[in-house]
Each structure stands twice: as C-alpha cells, then as structure tokens.
C-alpha cells in the first residue's frame, strides 16, 4: 500500500510518545549547536528544515512534548523506519542540543486563523 510504502522513513518519534519513560530532566542543550546538527546530521531530511514534519516521512518535532528520555530512545533504537543514530555518530550531548533546538522553535499558527486553509476541503 502506498500509504505504507511511502512512509519510507516514517520516523517513529510519534510512536515512542506513547511509551512510558521516567521523565528525567534533559541535560542542558546548546540551541545553536542543535540547530547546526539538525541540518548537518540529516534530521531535516524527514522532519523538515524547521522540524515541522512531513506527511509521509517524519512527524513534527518542533516544540516536541516528548520527554528527553523518549526522544533519546527513539534516536538510538528507533521504532518503525527511522534510521538509528547511535552514540558514535550523535553523542548524548549533541542529542540534547538537538532536543533543545526543536523545543525552542516557535509555534505554528492555528489552522482556523488561516482563511486559505479553512476554505478548503468542504464536504
């Protein structure tokens, strides 16, 4: 099924959200360094240049509500199709920096405030 097959890199971040994790505080992250690695390490490829997600490849990460432990777990041992990012290539600290970056991003507008969108898809 294309809906499945096209979810080629459907990152499992959203799946991990349902798991129970001890919510240990995230290590202090460097937002600027996180932004740099979000681009250079390929996160943008599936989750979008601004971590807004893409319908068929990866969920939205901006302002993620995932606890850091779950974020890190998904990075290391991803469910579904996401490629793994193990410690030799993304350290815990770099992961924390990326986490800090995506948490820091601005909120998207409410769809109801966008006339172009609200006027579409009327049944």
């Amino acid at each position: 099924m294309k809906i499945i097959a096209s979810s080629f890199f459907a990152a499992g971040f959203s799946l991990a959200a349902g798991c129970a994790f001890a919510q240990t505080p995230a290590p202090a992250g460097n937002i600027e360094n996180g932004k740099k690695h979000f681009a250079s390490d390929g996160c943008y490829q599936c989750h979008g240049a601004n971590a807004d997600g893409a319908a068929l490849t990866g969920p939205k990460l901006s302002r993620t509500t995932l606890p850091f432990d779950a974020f890190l777990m998904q990075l290391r041992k991803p469910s579904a199709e996401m490629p793994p990012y193990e410690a030799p290539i993304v350290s815990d600290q770099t992961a924390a920096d990326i986490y800090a970056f995506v948490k820091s991003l601005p909120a998207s507008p409410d769809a109801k405030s966008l006339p172009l969108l609200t006027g579409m898809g009327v049944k």
Partner: protein
Amino acid sequence: MKKTGPDQPNVDRRGFLKGVAVAGGAGMAASSVARAQGVAPAARAAAPNAAQQAAEHDHPPEMEALTTEKTGSDFMVDVCKTLSIDYMAACPGSTFRGLQESFINYGQNKKPEWLTCLHEEVSVGMAHGYAKVAGKPMAAMLHGTVGVQHAAMAIYNAWCDRVPMMLFTASAGPVEDRRPGVEWAHSVQDGAVTVRDFTKWDDYPWSLQSFAESTVRAYQLSCAQPPGPVLITADGKLQEMELGKKESAKLKIPKLSMGTQAVADPAALKDAAKMLVAAENPVILVDRYARSQKGVDALVKLAELLQAPVVDNRSRMNFPTQHYLYQSARGGALVGQADCILSLEPVDLFGQLNRVRDQMERTWRSTKKANAKVVCISTHDLMVRANYQDFQRLSEADMNITADAEASMPYLIEAVQREIGENKTKFEARGQKMRDAAKGFNDRARAEGAIGWDSSPISGARLYAELWNQIKNEDWAFMSPNNYSGNWQHRLWPLEKHYQYIGASGGSGVGYEPVAALGAALAHRDAGGRFPVAVIGDGNFNMAPHVMWSAVHHKIPFLGIIQNNRAYHQEVMHIQRMANRHNRAVDSAVIGTVITDPNIDYAMNARSYGAVGIGPISDPKELGEALKKGVAAVKAGNPVLIDVIMQPRG
C-alpha cells in the same frame, strides 16, 4: 551497391546522389564550407567519370529514375491514418526520413500531427501522459537503435503503468543498400529486443501489406486491457521504395476492430458479492482501476451500496476525495480491521497487505487480520514477463478474479444488489460511522497543513493551499504524482473528475513528471477549456527541461511548478540511512545527491526555451502573487514555470 575499385576515387555516387536529393541544404552548406576554406569542391568530392558511373549502374545513368510520386512510406501514412492517432512525437532521426517526409507532406501533417521533441524520452513520455487523459494512444517515432535506447526508460514507465502507445522505429534496410558508416550503426536485426521485455508486442514487417496488418494489430493489442506500449519497425527500404499503381492496388489496410474487454466470471462475482455483503467491516482498496468517469461513478455506486470505505492508492483518479467514503487517510487502520478486502487493479497486492521494514534485518509482517478474506479483481496476471520484476511479490488472495475491474464493475454491482435484496438500509449504521470519520479528516488535514505555514523553504501544504486559491474557479486538471510533497492535492483539494488526476509513472523512472505533464497538457488543450497544472520535482525536471521548448513550439499551455528542494532527496535519505547503519559520517549524505553549488535558476531556464519563467520564490508571502501571475500567463496561452524553493518533503 556496386563496389569501387582500389584505383578509383572513393566516391559513392549513389550515396552522393541520395545525399543531394534528400539533404540538398546540407550539400550546399558543405560547399559553402569548402569555399570558405579555399578548397575547390572538386578536390573534396570529385564528380564520377563515365566509367565510374557505368560501373555503378546496371543501366545508363541517364536512365536512372531519381524521383517518384509515391513510396512505401506514403502507404505507411495511409495505414496510420486509419487509426485514431492524433499526434506523432519524434526527435529527428535519419532512419525514418522517408516516413517523416510522408507524414508531413503526403499526410499534410494532420492526424497525426508531427510534434518535435528534443529527446526520445520526451516523445514517449508525452504519449504516456497523453493517453491517461485522452483515453487513447498517441504515437512516437524513434530513431533506429540509438533512439530506441534513449526511449527505453520512458517505455518501461509506460509498461509498468499499463498505458497504451504506438511506437515506431526504423532500420536502414538490406546490407547492399546501406551507406557505409552511420547507416550501419543505426541498423539492427532485431531493434525491438532492447525493449521487448517491457512492450506488449512488436514486429518488423518485411512487406507493406505486412506493415498494414501489423500496425493495425499493434493498435488493437495496445488498447486491450491491460494496455501497454507496442513497437513497429519500419524498414528503410520499404519506406523509400517506389510504390507503383499496380503494387499499390494490391495492398489492403485491415479494418480496425477494437475488442471488448475481459469481464469477470459471473459465478466468481456472485461469490465475491456474497463475501462483501456478509462482511462486518469490508474495505475497498483501489489502485490502477478507473480509466474513465464511468469507472469512477461505478465505484461510488458500489461503495455506497455497501457503505464500505475506499482506500485509494492513487495510481489513477478512482474516487472523489470529498466523498465521505473516501477514507484513504486511515487506510492502514481500515485494512487492519477489515474482515473482507476487495482490491481493484492493485499494482502491488502484497504491498497493500504487508509491511516491509527497511532496517538491517528486512522484516515483514501482514497488516491484515489473519482470517480476513481478500478478493482481487485485476488484469495483473495477463501481462507478466520473466525478467523485469515489476510484477511484485506474490500475495495470497482468497479469490483472484482475472478480469478488467472497470469493465466488470457493473456486473459486480448487480451481484451485490441481488445479495442485498430488499434490505436497503442494511448498512446505514456503517455509513454513519464513515461520515463521522470523514469529518475528522478535513480538520486533521487543515491542522497539519498549518504546521510550518510560514516556513521558508515553503511547506507542501502552503503551496497546495495557495495554488488551490488561484485555480479553484478554473476547470483544473492536476498532472503530477506528487508523493514527495505530501499528497496534499488529495488531502485538501476536491478531486471529482477522472481527468483531474493521472497518477504516477509506473516504473519510478525519474524524468516522467515533466514529459508526462507535457503530453497530458496537450490532451487537456484539445479537450478545450481546461487548466492543466503540474508540480514537478527539480530532479525530475532536470531530466528533460527542454519540454518547455516543445510546449512553446506547439502552443501547449500549462502551469508547471518546480518543487525545488535542490536535491535528489529520496537518494539523500537513502545515503543517510546507509551512513547511520554504518555508524559513520552522518553529515556526508549530501555528497552526490544534492543539486546545489551552483543553484539552478529554473525560471531563467524556462525563459531560455521561450516559456514564461517566474521565481525563485522562497518567501511564502510572495507565493500567492507569483501563482496569480502564472495562472494569468497560462490563460493567455503560455507554458509557465514557477520555481518554488520547498521543504525537502511536503
């Protein structure tokens, strides 16, 4: 051809005469060059003396006929004119020079009209897009050997996508008639072998009568479900041979007789109807099903009878996207819950019902319930070859009904109606559930569309919302597959008419998007009053940017939007996956995959071909105005290309 002796100047008189007769302009140009170089023409190509002339001819040279009124190629045109072929697309090639001249002069360049393409992949790709809109084949002419090689990938796409088209190629004829050099390189014993694995039928007719019969047969076969490309080789000698009245009178062009399509066994349809009516949670999966509005309407009727959800895999425009039974957004869940699955013309039944994980260990699992019944109506098994693996993995169906699903649909509907009997309200509760679910789809699509609304690069949802705002009052038709920009056209737009969407390439051969759009736009132009629009990946566009020239030259207006993520982004992701898997250099996936440094100016590129070019647009706030200008230019009759800098994926 007579041989010249070693003591004689190496002048091929017959070739010389042919060359002058056919390419007088080239001959004059050569003389001009010789003059410019201060070389006497006689020193470069000495005119043959009487002895040489005598040695080359079986008769005195003054008796040689150099012109004629009718040739075999004229008759070939007569044959093609009996078929419903409106266009012949071609990149020039000397192996079909006789035919080309006959089409444009003897045939008066009408039905078919000759279209100039700048690569054979465009000729074939145009035919691909055209057929999916016009519902009939157009033709492409391919140069002997090299032209077929250029065309091969586009033919493969058409094969995989089950699209009819008439392909012609040529060969220079028997050895004694070939000029040395190029004519040999462009001659072939079996030219079709290059593409035989992915054409439905081919032939190399050795007489004009044979050409007539083979060409008519090829057309019929190409259109029979499942359709596909067919290839006829027009022999060079047959093309250029003189055709006297006596010989001409003996030739007969067979009547075109289009066959009816294969309809399912009534007993099988009855069993299928029983299973569907008895099911608690039926689901209809549809893929390469509808080839007409009739097919769309019939599927709506079946779905409404059963109040069954439809999950569309989008290889064609199968079902109205705003209908409450269009439930593709939760296709995975519906398959998982279903107790009876009806699959109509699946491209990949296994892929519909299973999931394969792309990790170190390739694991797969079924996504349906173990006891769910699967009924498949498809022509898939009627066109399977051994070599290329587009047939996909074998999947177990409880009922595998080999038939054309669209042609069989009225009979399936009748069978379902009989099974339902008088209990017309039997499935009302299920229908209400579907209505409730459908309301949520729109809200969810809008909510997801708002994410990254103001982002630069521009999001897929923003592009499709802005685009819709500009074309919603037109009789629009979308001509792209566009999995790579989030399928927003299916999530946000009301697709209702069959011609509003034409599906994907079939074989995933990169380059399909611009060339199929050009062919589809041609068919939309001829249909009158439609507004054709395509969103084309930058990687795809770079395979054939010169489609813009053909569009301008032949006055085929359309709005092309470059979804410019400056990469072969699917490949970026593949390399990233490999680097991650190997735990090394995760920042190097861009090597060999991105299209930057320098960035390509697609608007300038379009302008260089004579089209209207707009962009690049990277600020979403400027997008609406750019699209508005583009729409106005298309309505004024122009091909337009707008370069939009977009997110890697929509």
